[in-house]
């Protein structure tokens, strides 16, 4: 009696050599992917580099032609005078506040709506979506005067709260739609399991759905923050002495000299870059390996 682990009944056939061509192909593909990534990265980053370089160029260097890529003369004075100007730092604070508040409120108000869209089929769903898009679709400039009047009457005019309200409302469609599209993909049975094990619907959503929908929440947070960070008109019409950064300085950018424009533009993007950097991890999903 035999134990045929190797099954000696059949003679071991001659094995062909290991074919590494697919590995080579894979490596080639990886290289291709990397090249594509680099190409896209260059396309995306180059303008940022340009504006960064321009922001630290001297005026003379900016006026050269043909321009060298690296400016011939560096100068920080535009950037610095920009930062030192009255109100820039408080405005920075206001912008951060308004941005974070808007992120918070748009999630609080928008995510439940997104959840409802994702989990329920109900009459009026399309109508709701259209309504929520209505606001985004109408150029906000035509709303500006009535809006300011309303805030004055409500006595929240010229506060970060007012800006937050406007920005939250502006970001709401994005939040609702993005979160809805993600919630749709979170399996319902997980939520059901959570409910069976003693969660309220709210707890089930918070403990199970939300962590799984993290990429979507991060995406919509990024949008909200960036929107709030760059939004100009709304912030301008509802504030006066408590401006956000764009309202404080962006107004002037269009009319300043190039050096200032670049300096201002660059200064405006820096904090947003930081925010994206933080949120990126959630978007790429920390638990990327665990979710599938």
């Amino acid at each position, binding site marked *: 009696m035999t134990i045929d682990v190797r099954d000696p009944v059949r003679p071991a056939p001659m094995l062909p050599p290991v074919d590494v061509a697919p590995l080579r192909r894979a490596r080639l593909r990886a290289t291709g*992917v990397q090249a594509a*990534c680099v190409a896209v*990265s260059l396309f*995306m*980053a180059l*303008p940022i580099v340009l*504006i960064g370089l321009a922001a630290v160029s001297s005026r003379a260097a900016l006026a050269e*032609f*043909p*321009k060298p*890529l690296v400016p011939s003369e560096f100068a920080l004075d535009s950037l610095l005078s920009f930062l030192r100007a009255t109100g820039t730092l408080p405005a920075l604070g206001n912008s951060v506040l308004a941005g974070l508040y808007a992120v918070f409120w748009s999630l609080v108000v*928008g995510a*439940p709506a997104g959840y*409802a*869209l994702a989990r329920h089929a*109900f009459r009026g769903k399309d109508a*709701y979506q*259209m*309504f929520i898009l*209505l*606001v*985004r679709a*109408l*150029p906000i400039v*035509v*709303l*500006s*005067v*009535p809006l300011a009047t*309303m805030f004055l009457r409500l006595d929240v005019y010229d506060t970060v709260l007012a800006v937050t*309200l*406007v920005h939250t*409302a502006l970001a*709401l*469609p994005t939040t*609702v*739609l*993005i979160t809805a599209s993600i919630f749709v993909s*979170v399996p319902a049975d997980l939520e059901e399991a959570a*409910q069976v094990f003693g969660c309220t*619907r709210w707890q089930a959503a918070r403990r199970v759905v939300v962590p*799984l929908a993290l*990429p*979507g929440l991060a995406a919509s947070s990024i*949008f909200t923050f960036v929107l709030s*960070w*760059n939004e100009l008109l709304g912030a301008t019409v509802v504030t006066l002495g408590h401006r956000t950064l764009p309202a404080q300085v962006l107004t002037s*950018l*269009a009319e300043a000299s190039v050096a200032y424009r*670049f300096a201002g*533009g660059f200064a*405006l*993007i820096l904090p947003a*870059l930081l925010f*994206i950097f933080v949120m*990126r991890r959630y978007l*790429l*999903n920390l638990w990327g390996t665990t*979710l*599938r």
Partner: protein
Amino acid sequence: MRSRSPWLLLLPSLVLMAALFGWPLVQAVLAAFRDEGGFTLAHWQRLLTDPYFLPALRNTVLLIVIVLPVQLALAIGMALLVQARPRFIGGHFYLWCVPLAISELAAGLVWLSVFDNRGYLNSLLVSLGLSENGVQWLSYENTTTMLLTVVIAEIWRATSLVFVIVVAGMQVIPRDYDEAAQVFGASLGQRLRHVTLPLLMPSLQVALILRTILALQAFAVAQALTGRDFPLLVGETYEWYVNLRNPAVSSAVALVVLALSLGTALLYLRTVRQPEGAR
């Protein structure tokens, strides 16, 4: 559990929107059709005879028609690159999101510095000896290059938006499905067409809707690059409201934008969707 009304969850958003924008919105709509004497179409007449309106409408539509598909394709491509998880993907990913952080105006400025007569692009061309004085990219005479520069700038500025939504959507698709498709002999293209894209539908729908609406709202880039040589509808709204102080005509333009936005949004909602019951 399905019985509880979803309206409870929708209510806060409805209230916020209605409270903040409802009344101003009604006023805007009324303004477009009213003057001291009551109902009138004079504002629309004024608009239609305006030499900027039709070009603006044409440019807007043209821009969206060109930019949107390119962005969508690019964003999906980029998202697929992310899915392939190459090395340094964290860094790449970050760079790809960076344009999000940049305000429209700054984006316009950046590309102006590139396409300007004496900008980086012409600098490059001249120093490489490819051209003597550079190309007049932004000249009002070169409608094509003007459109091209605006398209490039818009693609650069706003692809990240689509990209981020698509990536977020892809993150939640279980990998099983793609693996199954591979085993069953689907090539990359087939997998995309039959598995990834259909499962991505909700995200694509959202990306398309938002992108179209936001594209209809964007004009600072075009304005920074080409001035009023390349008028866009929203730019006209601003022009009428801010510079010409004519809220009525401005509202009329705004309503055109609104109609375009909602029309396309409705189209997407109807066409780009998963069939009922799928998933």
